[in-house]
Structures are given as structure tokens and as C-alpha cells.
């Protein structure tokens, strides 16, 4: 099955779930420090893909979802940043979604460290759009196998030019 929204298209393997969401920007605004200019928050598309049932109440980097992960589970998150992030040092320009290696998966590379889990994170700019790829495996011992799966899934992700 294919999902597409906000210029992001992803192919979901059989048995996977996926969502591309974009939160409604809140009314929050504030002056940029050192200036009089008042700026409002903005939001971007967030892609969640998982080989398990995604709970509805999820944080953008998968909190809520990671709480229900177990052995064999894999979560792939792609978060888009604003235009001001494009091609900055943190978001190097690439020509495809970066691959994740087994060594990148670490039990410390998690927003919230949870027993047995391991995560990996890559920032990149693709087609003039800035993203973060974040992946979590439910069991670190599966990292080698699931890293390959993650790469297979992310290789199918297409990003339209801005």
C-alpha cells in the first residue's frame, strides 16, 4: 500500500502501518530574541511507518508508539523541518534518503531510552527539503536484520521537490 501527502510518498510493506500527518499550527507566537519581530510556530509533515499497530496518540518522534514496541518491531520516522534548515551543516544535501547501518543503532540513540530498544538518527536535505530520519528497533538484537528492513522501506520513500 502506498501513502502520500505533503509531497512525501512511501510504500508500506505488507502488514505495515503508516501515517503522514501535519499538525495544525497552534496560535503560539513570540518575538524572536533580540528583535521586535513576532513569529508564529509552524509545523511540517511527519511520516510514521511501523510493522506493528501504531497507537493514535503519538509524539512526532514516536513517543507512545515506542512504548508498545517489542521484539521484531521496527518504527521508521521521517520528520520535515522548515526551509531555513535546508542545506545547513546539520542537514547535509543528499540525493536519496540516507541508509542506516547496524552500527548506527544504539541503545542510547533514543529520545527516551527504553530497555532493549535501539535507535538511529540521520539529518539530511533531499530535493531542497530538510528531514530527520529516525528509526527504532524494539529489540537491539534484531538491529542487523531490521536495519536492512528499514533501508528497504526508506529506499521507497520519494520526496517531491519543493
Amino acid at each position, binding site marked *: 500500500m502506498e501513502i502520500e501527502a505533503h509531497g512525501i510518498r512511501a510504500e508500506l510493506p505488507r502488514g505495515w502501518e503508516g*501515517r503522514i500527518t501535519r499538525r495544525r499550527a497552534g496560535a503560539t507566537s513570540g518575538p524572536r*530574541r533580540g528583535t521586535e519581530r513576532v513569529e508564529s510556530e509552524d509545523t511540517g509533515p511527519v511520516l510514521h511507518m511501523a510493522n506493528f499497530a501504531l497507537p493514535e496518540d503519538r509524539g512526532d518522534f514516536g513517543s507512545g508508539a515506542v512504548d508498545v514496541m517489542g521484539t521484531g518491531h521496527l518504527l521508521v520516522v521521517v520528520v520535515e523541518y522548515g526551509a531555513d534548515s535546508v542545506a545547513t551543516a546539520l542537514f547535509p544535501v543528499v540525493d536519496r534518503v540516507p541508509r542506516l547501518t547496524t552500527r548506527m543503532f544504539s541503545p542510547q540513540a533514543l529520545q527516551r531510552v527504553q530497555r532493549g530498544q535501539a535507535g538511529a538518527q540521520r539529518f539530511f536535505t533531499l530535493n531542497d527539503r530538510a528531514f530527520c530520519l529516525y528509526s527504532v528497533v524494539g529489540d537491539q538484537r534484531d538491529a542487523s536484520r531490521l536495519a536492512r528492513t528499514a533501508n528497504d522501506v526508506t529506499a521507497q520513500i520519494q520526496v517531491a521537490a519543493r
Partner: protein
Amino acid sequence: MIALKPRALLRRGAPHGVSSAESAAPAAGPTSAPTATIAERVVARTAGLLSGGHSRRRFLARTAVVGSALAVNPVSFLLKPGTAYGAVCGTCGDGWTAFCCTVNGGKNSCPPGSFVAGWWKADNAAYCCGGPRYIVDCNATCPTQCACRCSGASCDGRRVCCNQFRYGQCNQQISCYGPVVCRVAICITPWTYSSACSTRTLTDNATSQHGANCLSDECDSSITRRYYALGGPDSTLGIRTTVERSTPEGRGRYAVYQGGRLYWSSPTAARVIGGSIYSAWAAAQATSGVFGFPSTDVLTSGDGRARYSKFEGGTIYSWSPGTFQVPNPYNLVHAKVGGAIRNSALGLPTSPIRRSGDGRSLYLNFERGRIYRRGSLCVEIHGAIFFKHESMSGVHGVLGHVASDVLVLADGRGRGTIFEHGGVIYYTGTTGAHALYGAVLKGYLDYGGWQTDAGYPTTDRLAVGDGRGYTATFEGGKSFATSTTGGHFVPRRILTQYEAQGGPGGSLRYPVAMVERLAGGVLRQRFEGGTLTV
């Protein structure tokens, strides 16, 4: 004028952000966080129940976050408050990173060796008066010096330098980074907190009630924004010690910090005050007193000698001789002649308000003069004119009380001050300050005063020495007066002949009329003993 009231602040935090996710195929996105619950309605009562001797309960009771804990599971919380305590405080095993104030000497800021690296939002946070809360990650700089550990705190015993994760909206010029050292919790937008953060909002509502002993409630208010704009806990204000609250008279709000205070009112904005200036202001009843709210931060005088704060109703100065209040209208008069700028007419204040010996006026001393208040009149006197007045016994002397400011005369050269009985002290840079009064002054003014060839006085009013008359010398002549002749000015051309004939001691004795200007430039003046024509 709008006073921010706690209820109003709570209302500002209406749920938003996640309530209507813009969904993409094939399924809807994250759903709304819960809005107001029964928990919020019982929070006050529960806080009361919890305020017993149990330390955990005391912690919860003194923070609005008890409302959040209740919101998570009110029944469980009421029956097993330890559960809520655990959710708020957290442990090393919960996988989250500790708050910076727990590991950074109480400061809710990134410690040395770390930088603001990213942030996320948690909506409906009790810590933020029901508004959005922002958790800012402080990631270690490269190469990383810190090692993974637990904070060791009894509350917020979470992890330090462990989680190698980055949210990424801040300081995107930095691509090499270490683990999250700690987290800063704020209620103002991250781009207001740090100019290095973008506005791209990422959300994780699971963290809205994460707490620590060193964190207390904070609203997104003018005071909070100003605090962080000044550098927050790393500024001279240091750590907040009293949460923001209303001022006693109800017109504004204030918060107390280790190194001073911030006061806010609608017309004056949020201003810093501290030290001896604060003490003097507090002694004058602070916002309830004549000074009202501060309208500036603590400023430094142009010559660097004094620190001062301006208020709605005056200025308070602190410098080496002491701290002095200058309320209005003294302050307005002082400001008119330069206030605290370098080499201003009056200079800096040197005394509190005093009452004159005759009880008819109040005055404030300054380095180079004085401001008197008498009835509705408030005037300043400074420089050579002030010292001349003082040399003549000041308000107790023949000139009496000051009746005008030091006036700059229209020729731009002279200055003059008028006194209550009509006397005047004139001053120029070449002639100095000289006092005139009575008929001698009248003769000078009848002639036309400083706007004529008479010029400015070069002496005070003096006795002639004959037991009868008085005189004063001017750049262009002399004025003579007696009780029988009145006062008349004798211009230089006539004066030369008059003095050649002995002046008032000669046969002509004293002038009895003003000089007459005849055709052909001829001058004529009548004296008691005859007439001179030149």
C-alpha cells in the same frame, strides 16, 4: 491598563496544536490531547489534602503540576499519590533526560559544554499555566566530555549525558554533537528563548508534567519573556526565587530572583530593579507609593558615576554618597536641565528632601544646585547663580525664595533667576553672577535691561557709602537709587561726565529721571543738581 490575572493566564492556554491534525491518507494523524478534565476542577482541593507531612506530597502540592498528574489518572492519583510523584519526578530508569536545573546549580539553562540543540512542545501544561510548555534539549558540544550517569536527585533522578538524540531545530550550523546533557523547561517560545532556534514545532505531549524540585510554575508572560531575554538564570538576576504574582495595588505583576526583581505593568513593560535602588523604592511603598512602577531598567549615568532607575513618578539614584529618591515634580525639573547626563546643570542628587528653615519650602540638594518646591511652584537653581544666592543667606536673605528656574535669556549669553520679592541674579560667563533688587534693579530694567547697551551687571547692588544711595555697575553704565529719587540708569556716555563731576557725591547728586534720547544722537539726563547733555 491590563493586569494579568492568574485566571486570565490560564485561559490563554487554550488547547491547540494537536486538536485537529491535518491528516494524510490513509489514516488520521495524532489525536488531540485531553482538554480540561475533572482533575483541573479538583486540583485546589487536592493540593490541600496533600499538604501534610509527606515530602512527596508537599512537592506536588506546591506545584500546579499536581493538576497534570491528576489529569493523567485522577483516581489513581488520589488513591496513590506516589504514582503521580513518580510521573512528575521521574527516575534514572524512566529513560528521559534530567532537567538542567537539577544538574546545573539550580539554573534552568544549558550548562557549560552544552548548547541549545532542539526542542519540542507539550500542550496544556500545568507548569505553564495551562499553555504550551517547551522542552529544550542541551546537547553536549564536540568532543564530548561528559559521561552517561544518573542525576542522583531524589526528584528528577533522570539521566545525564546519556541519550544521543537531537531534535534539531536550534543551532543547525553545529553538526557535531554529543548526547543530551539536560533539558531546559520554558513557557515562552523557543525562538524567544534563543535566537538560534527555528519556529518548526514538534510535539510530544507525554512530557508536559515532567518536573523537578527546582522547577516551578511559570506563565508565558511579559516578565518571563524579559527574564529570558536578559539571559534567564545566567543573567545577573539569577534563579527565580518567587513565582510571578500580582502587585499589591493590582496594576501589575512581579517576580523575585536571586539578583533582583522584575516588575511589569501595561504602560511601563517589564523592568529590572534591584539593590539599593530597590530598597529605597520599597521604603517608598514600591508600586503603591508615589514612584509607581519602574519605567526603565537600572541605568548608568552618562559619566558612569551613578546607577538609577526611572519610575512613573520619579527617579531613584544610587551613587557613592548614597541612594536618593527624586520624586516628581522634582524629577521633572531635574530632567528638564539634563537629569543624569554628563555635566548636567544640577548634577546628581546629594540629599533626601528637606524642609527649609523657615518652613516655607521643601528642597533637594544636588551637586551643583538645588530644587525648591513651594506650593505649586517647583524650580531649580544651579551653578554660579545658586552659589550667589547661597552667599546672600539663600531663602533667608534679602532675595528670599526662588521664584523661577534659571532662565536662559534670549541673547543666549545671559542667565537669570527671579526671586520672590522681585530680585534677580544675572549671570554671564564674562561678568559672573550678580544680584540686583529694589530701585537699582528698577532703574536698570526701565532703561531696557540686558537687551540694551547697559549689558549685564558686573557688581551686586552696593551701598554708595553716603548713607543714602545704592548703585550697581553694568557693562554699559551704572544704576543709582535713593528713597527720594527712585532708581535710574546712567549710560556710559553720561556716566563719564557725571563721575568726572563727582558722581552722587558731587554737585549733581543722584539722577532723578531716565535718560532722554534727543535728535542727532544726543543724550540728556536730569540729576538733583542739574542736567547733563552729551
